[in-house]
């Protein structure tokens, strides 16, 4: 009797906790999916408990970013020095940074001056301010891409699908699915009933359908240094991988630490269970 009641009580508790956790992650995500078409889900290198960023792909992605996207989109949270995290040497990073000009000063004449960027500088912005960015883009504002993969990660659909994806450690990869989909598959002919303003394009993954960004990727639009064939899909995957790294450069450290912490806690909890059993062995209850 006592055992079944205890089991019942614990069952209710477990169900409540599991239910809460499942529900807690669902806020609003199914919605976001419902508004526009759901982009295809890809296998990303950094998902799963042991996931790491595919360095070759991320390096190609940097190339796409700097040759294509950087003319419109900033990457304000990054410093050039962060690129060592992608496998570049310090010299390569210094050389990369030096291509860009940053404003510095004032000098001892009290004047601002331009100098080549250094690894300790932030990525240079394409526009001096938002108004300039809008003026150059037909009124639309190209968002900063530093966190785009995280802030477009609206999940995988229903509460259940999101819960499952959470257990599979897919993290914010739905944001990468979105950016990849937007760039590689989103630009299609608009349906009859859609009216686009001048300077707008139709993209089936955009919430409203209309986007102020002209299709940025073309086959062989970049020439990859490693000789990979630059299809639109390949470029979209590579730039999404790069941006996923840019959104959280500490992701790998987080997962590697996590594996050790969980192993330690599992063993430690096992010992605690054994101690508790022994302690309570003589108590009738």
């Amino acid at each position, binding site marked *: *009797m*006592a055992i079944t*009641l*205890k089991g019942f*009580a*614990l069952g*209710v*508790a477990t169900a*409540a*906790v599991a*239910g*809460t*956790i499942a*529900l*807690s*992650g*669902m*806020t*609003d995500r199914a*919605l976001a999916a419902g508004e526009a078409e759901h982009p295809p889900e890809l296998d990303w290198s950094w998902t799963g408990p042991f996931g790491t960023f595919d360095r070759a792909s991320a390096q190609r992605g940097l190339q796409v970013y700097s040759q294509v996207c950087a003319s419109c989109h900033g990457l304000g*949270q990054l410093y050039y020095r*962060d690129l060592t995290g992608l496998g570049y040497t310090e010299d390569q990073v210094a050389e990369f940074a030096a291509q860009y000009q940053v404003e510095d000063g004032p000098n001892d004449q009290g004047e601002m001056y331009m100098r080549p960027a250094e690894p300790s500088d932030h990525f240079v912005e394409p526009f001096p301010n938002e108004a300039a960015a809008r003026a150059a883009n037909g009124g639309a504002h190209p*968002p900063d891409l*530093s*966190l785009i993969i*995280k*802030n*477009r*990660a*609206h999940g995988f659909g229903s509460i259940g699908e999101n819960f499952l994806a*959470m257990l599979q*450690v897919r*993290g*914010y990869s739905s*944001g990468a699915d979105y950016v990849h989909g937007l760039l590689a598959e989103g630009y299609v002919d608009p349906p009859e009933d859609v009216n686009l303003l001048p300077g707008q394009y139709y993209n089936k993954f955009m919430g409203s359908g209309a986007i102020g960004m002209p299709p940025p990727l073309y086959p062989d639009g970049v020439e990859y240094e490693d000789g990979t064939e630059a299809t639109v899909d390949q470029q979209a995957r590579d730039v999404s991988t790069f941006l996923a790294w840019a*959104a*959280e*450069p*500490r992701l790998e*450290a*987080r*997962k590697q*630490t*996590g*594996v050790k*912490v*969980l192993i330690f*806690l*599992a063993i*430690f*909890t096992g010992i*605690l*269970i054994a*101690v*508790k059993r022994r*302690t*309570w062995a003589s*108590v*009738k*209850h």
Partner: protein
Amino acid sequence: MSSHSAPSFKNPVVRWVDSRLPVFSYMHAEYGTFPMPKNLNYFWNFGALAMVVLITMILTGIMLAMQYTAHTEHAFDSVERIMRDVNFGWLLRYIHMNGASMFFIVVYVHIFRGYYYGSYKQPRELLWILGVVILVLMMGTAFMGYVLPWGQMSFWGATVITNLFSAIPLVGENIVTWLWGGFSVDNPTLNRFFALHYLFPFLILGVVILHVVALHVTKSNNPDGIDVRGPQDTVPFHPYFTAKDSVGLGVFLLIFAFFVFFAPNYMGHPDNYIEANPLVTPAHIVPEWYFLPFYAILRSFTDDWWFFSWFLSWLMTAKLAGVLAMFGSLIVLAVLPWLDTSKVRSNRYRPIHKWLVIAVLIDFVILGWVGGKPAEEPYVSIAQWSTLFYFFAFIVLTPIIGWIERPRPLPASISEPVLKGGATTAKMEKS
């Protein structure tokens, strides 16, 4: 408090201090020899877990505050800097962020434990009320903390929630301006929220101490909900509950760590990784998940809801009704000891009320679910009926069931769970 058998400490320094300031004797009495009912199940772990999370939040919070900048121009970037450049900053931030969710999960289970086993009843009413006070303070703390990273949800959540005070008749608008320190949520708001977010956890700690003092007067309830009859019913806190609480802690830390390291953003909202922008309203403004049940109650009160137009529209606006109902849902919890007319504590022995408890739990989860949905059908109706049920269950059904229910016979004592017929029930009711 408990029977002090002043221990003789071997260490001379400890003895010296203890004879002048008996902290060691106190710890010994309250956490060493303190008598605990021996039939407690794992539900009784959650209080200790809440304490661990509170300390974790305070420690990680203080370390974050050393790197955080409370200014609208810098707050978002300073949090990103913590994530990227501060050594183990990502760890601190993710612990703090998920710790808030864990805190609510633990406290909700802890409250449910008290509800199911009747821990709110005589003589533990004040202990229970202090618990509700802690919940309210936690909600305030978490709400203000969520504003600090200055993302889109931070800003718009703060705007929506502070605007609620405008529902107060006559002075509402003035109060909102005063809360904001201006005419919109802006830098002064962020500054005071940071100051208060730093302060509140210490208020919580203070109330938690009172909560524990009260607990050590009344001692723990237990799954049978009957009084301890003598030493045969109890075991000393140490080593028995130090061992048992440690098991719970180990399991809890495993779950907590899983979220911190492998799903740190699962319980958050992606829009909060977009810097706050007063000119762009997000498509759906949703509070953090732990507020959703209360948010659903708040939003239930619409002008066209029959319940509102029949009973309340002559007296107040729908907005004010919603705000009052939201606070009312917590007040109802606080007065539960007097709404429940049954003397039997544990729902193990309450064949009817037990189903009410389970129904309220389900109702609460449903409220949480619809709270995260847009204000459209069928969610609005579901929220409204669930809101009605919440109040109906506590205000009407709880007292009535207490009167009409025939409890099952209680065990004679904890160590003797063999049922001895109705005689014990009678004895119980007299005491």
